[in-house]
């Protein structure tokens, strides 16, 4: 006998997802706890012994053009509200695509495109319909090209200079993809640059989640990398390579990528010990002016500048900063030990060089952890008894306040919170969210005038957070509903909204350098199948299916296989029972606190394939909407230039209906009312922190000169770059140094840069 589908849904699912406000609400970011990193600055032998110096080291490394092989700093792509507002030479042909078109450039809406093209309004959106609110109307144009960020010329790495010059010695040639005629242009990386601000809260980073939550000291892959480690002085005269396992350190993992990436910052074949050799004996920010009131460097007396004269560089070296910031066991080994050498006949590495990946990753993470924008209007507004913003006393007119309130209600009513939920407006902030969702007497977050107690209602009354699968237990896996109406295992904090052809970029559905999938959902399936060799990241075995948005198993025998679910008919066991622990307490729905037995799971692969199905194709990390006003162009492919275009995208329920598209896209009703969309945009703009707009501390920074296209256009480029005669002459954007007090004029949205 089979129960009707509807009855089962009512009995075992969460409250039906009607068009009511639901999901973790946009609470203030103030005092949201940064995820703890055990052992970093605490414990009996902390890695960092001077956190203030580590932050200064990280700020210097982030802005220093000497880090790249040819003038690229991290900030070269992360300088405008933490993202990139450049318009020239920003096109990638779609290199993440599995199709041949990903290697060739398309003509965009302006009639032009490709290397050294200057973007204009006519190029956006990349996927354009005759009626932007109707995806059944005529498709005017589409492309798998992406609007991203120009990086390095690449080339084969040969050596570094330890004292002078930004450029590494590399074998340079005109790139086979990025060139105009025979003249080489800077390569462009394949995905739009997200903002670095507030990323300390993300459980994982990069659009595809490959920057692992665990930092292993030398690569982005966390525990997955068998060769990773750091050199530790173990005794008076002994040093040994040891494994490192630093939790909640995805930003340190991330930092291992771009400085070695041949589209972003580096010639091919460089390693981080070599980067250390290049930088250690130099003054940080050697050729870049530092503001005499820099919020980090001035407070520590590190800047050479005065009120009357701006000077370049800090008054120390990278090596000196490292010896002050880090535990001596990572740098004080006195012999030239077993660290290898760059090449036969060259000076062997010392311990500081061998551990440079550790210092680089951690310093950058500690600096980036200071980039939290928690003073936006949404944070500062007074709140009423229901903790809703009142917007009073902030200089807003009656009409503005009404628009903000309507905008927030429409945002919530259209299910946006399910993905863009909580104070960060993304569910990717798993660890911090789980902390404040844990009932903790006496603990609050939020501004002084509107304190919010920790507990299941921390993001809205009646447990709103649970609608997104968010609980105190911090699941990284969920079970969601996708476009074809089926339920699939997914990664928390990731979603497919149908921005582009799913074949153009697999997103989360890809593998690391060892052939193992990024996805947590895939690893969870392997765990359920009893294949522990298929589990690479920590925490997979303790996922709680009773908190999933849609149930996986229930302990009732319906007398037959119930497609898409596990029941006692096939065999279920209590959650945690495989490990001998109890995971059934404080469940969102206790009747679902079960997992299939190993044999039931394996049998389902043929008998009930929908049960263990997962959805990861073209699923991308949900970006935070904080400062979204300033961080265009939008989406992983940079395909939309304005917030209006983004709302048009949602109004028409996405660009590509595909099997993995999130269930809520078709439920969005924004197409009919222009006022609704105006109101939502007004609400989104309330997430902009004024300090980000005016680059006030902690968003102040040194001077940086950023490559911005080449002399000429997309049809012809002047050759004769000083680096190599076959490379194009550079055009530059100079971003002047800014001190703690910020700039006089605010930075603006990306669209202001377009003609």
């Amino acid at each position, binding site marked *: 006998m089979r129960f009707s589908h509807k009855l089962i849904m009512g009995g075992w699912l969460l409250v039906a997802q009607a068009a009511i406000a639901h999901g973790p609400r946009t609470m203030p970011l103030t005092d949201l706890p940064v995820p703890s990193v055990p052992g970093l600055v605490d414990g009996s032998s902390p890695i960092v012994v001077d956190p203030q110096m580590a932050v200064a080291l990280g700020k210097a490394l982030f802005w220093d053009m000497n880090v790249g092989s040819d003038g690229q700093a991290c900030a070269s792509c992360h300088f405008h509200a933490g993202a990139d507002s450049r318009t020239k030479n920003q096109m990638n042909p779609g290199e993440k695509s599995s199709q041949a078109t990903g290697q060739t450039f398309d003509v965009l809406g302006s009639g032009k495109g490709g290397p050294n093209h200057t973007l204009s309004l006519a190029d956006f959106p990349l996927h354009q319909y005759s009626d932007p609110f109707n995806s059944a109307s005529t498709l005017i144009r589409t492309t798998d090209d992406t609007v991203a960020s120009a990086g390095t010329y690449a080339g084969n790495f040969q050596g570094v200079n330890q004292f*002078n010059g930004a450029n590494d010695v590399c074998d340079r040639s005109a790139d086979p993809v990025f060139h105009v005629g025979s003249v080489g242009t800077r390569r462009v990386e394949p995905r739009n640059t997200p903002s670095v601000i507030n990323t300390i809260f993300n459980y994982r980073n990069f659009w595809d989640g490959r920057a692992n939550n665990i930092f292993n000291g030398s690569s982005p892959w966390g525990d997955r990398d068998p060769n990773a480690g750091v050199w530790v002085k173990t005794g008076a005269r002994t040093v040994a390579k040891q494994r490192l396992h630093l939790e909640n350190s995805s930003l340190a993992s991330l930092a291992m990528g771009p400085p070695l990436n041949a589209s972003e910052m580096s010639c091919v074949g460089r390693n981080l010990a070599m980067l250390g050799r290049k930088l250690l004996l130099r003054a940080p920010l050697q*050729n870049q002016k530092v503001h005499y009131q820099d919020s980090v460097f001035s407070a520590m007396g590190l800047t050479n500048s005065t009120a009357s004269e701006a000077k370049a560089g800090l008054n120390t*070296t990278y090596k000196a900063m490292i010896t002050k910031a880090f535990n001596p066991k990572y740098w*004080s080994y006195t012999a030239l030990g077993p660290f290898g050498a760059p090449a036969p006949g060259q000076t062997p590495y010392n311990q500081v060089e061998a551990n440079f990946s550790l210092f680089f990753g951690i310093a950058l993470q500690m600096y980036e952890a200071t980039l939290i924008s928690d003073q936006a209007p949404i944070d500062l507004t007074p709140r009423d008894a229901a903790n809703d913003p009142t917007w009073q006393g902030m200089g807003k007119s009656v009409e503005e306040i009404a628009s903000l309130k309507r905008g927030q209600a429409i945002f919530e009513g259209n299910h946006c919170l399910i993905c863009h939920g909580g104070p960060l407006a993304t569910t990717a902030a798993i660890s911090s969210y789980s902390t404040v969702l844990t009932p903790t007497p006496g603990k609050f977050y939020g501004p002084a005038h509107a304190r919010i107690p920790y507990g299941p209602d921390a993001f809205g009354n009646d447990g709103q957070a649970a609608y997104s699968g968010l609980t105190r237990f911090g699941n990284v896996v969920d079970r969601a509903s996708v476009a074809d109406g089926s339920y699939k295992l997914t990664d928390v904090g990731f979603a497919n909204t149908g921005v582009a052809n799913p074949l153009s970029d697999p997103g989360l559905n890809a593998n690391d350098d060892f052939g193992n999938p990024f996805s947590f959902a895939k690893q969870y399936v392997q765990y359920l199948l009893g294949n522990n060799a298929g589990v690479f990241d920590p925490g997979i075995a303790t996922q709680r299916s009773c908190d999933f948005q849609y149930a996986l198993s229930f302990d009732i025998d319906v007398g037959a296989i119930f497609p898409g679910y596990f029941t006692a008919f096939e065999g279920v066991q209590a959650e945690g029972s495989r490990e001998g622990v109890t995971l059934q307490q404080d469940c969102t729905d206790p009747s679902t606190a079960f997992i299939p037995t190993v044999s039931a799971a394996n049998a389902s692969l043929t008998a009930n394939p929908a049960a263990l199905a997962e959805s990861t194709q073209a699923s991308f990390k949900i970006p935070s909407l904080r400062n979204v006003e300033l961080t265009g162009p939008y989406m992983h492919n940079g395909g939309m230039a304005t917030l209006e275009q983004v709302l048009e995208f949602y109004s028409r329920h996405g660009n590509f209906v595909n099997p993995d598209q999130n269930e809520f896209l078709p439920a969005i009703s924004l197409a009919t009312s222009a006022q609704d969309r105006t109101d939502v945009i007004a609400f989104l703009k309330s997430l902009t922190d004024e300090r980000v707009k005016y680059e006030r501390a902690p968003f102040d920074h040194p001077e940086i000169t950023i490559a911005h296209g080449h002399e000429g256009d997309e049809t012809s480029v002047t050759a004769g770059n000083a680096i190599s005669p076959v490379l194009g002459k550079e055009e530059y954007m100079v971003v002047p140094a800014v001190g703690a007090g910020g700039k006089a004029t605010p930075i603006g949205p990306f669209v202001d840069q377009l003609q």
Partner: protein
Amino acid sequence: MNKSTKKLTLWSAAAIVGAGQLFATAAQASAATSSYVTVTYTINSIQNLTHPGDLSGLDILGSFDLASLDNNPYQLITGSGSVTPTLTGTGSSAVTGSYSRTLQLDAGAENWSSVSANYLAWFSLAFNNTSATDSYDVDLTLSYDLSAAASGNSAFSDATATFYNEDSSFSNFADPAYVQAAAGVAGFGAMSNSHGFNFTLAAGEAETVYVDASINATMAPVPLPAAAWSFLIGALSVLGLKRNKSACQSV
């Protein structure tokens, strides 16, 4: 052709004397470093707790030399560069009141030459109670001076000292000492410190206080005036080649 090889060949062939010399040093080099580590053990008092006044059962031996390890000392010199270590009083010797030794490393390089050197020395003072019956109480002060200086351009030197006793039990040994000097950035660094120790050796026991100290000197001077360094976004070797040619022509 390998660009870095070409660059090195030109440097050794150029031998520009005097041009671009920014600082007067005794070695007439365009970059110079001078660094040292001095370690002094001072025995404040020794007492025979069993037979007061009888110090015959306690052997005290001081020792100082380059560490006998692969890759030590290390040096890589191209062109007109020099490395001059100074270690006086190497080997082992009996000690009564105090024992002081210095590891010094001077290095210099002309323009277009380079030096990379690393010297590691081991200092120690060993106490051996050879008596079968007596205990000794020792009061000792370990003091050390580190100094690093770098002048010219593109020159760097640092000194590191680590300290420990036989079983690593002396708690005030935790932190190493470190100084550095980077020409044009912060050309001089120095520090001094001292630690006191008091320990008792029963019959047949021994204790040693070790200092391992290394000095590094790295330099690769080029004849550019300081103001031009702020424009060094182009390839250094290209800029250098042009400078080289014009300098030759003016001579």
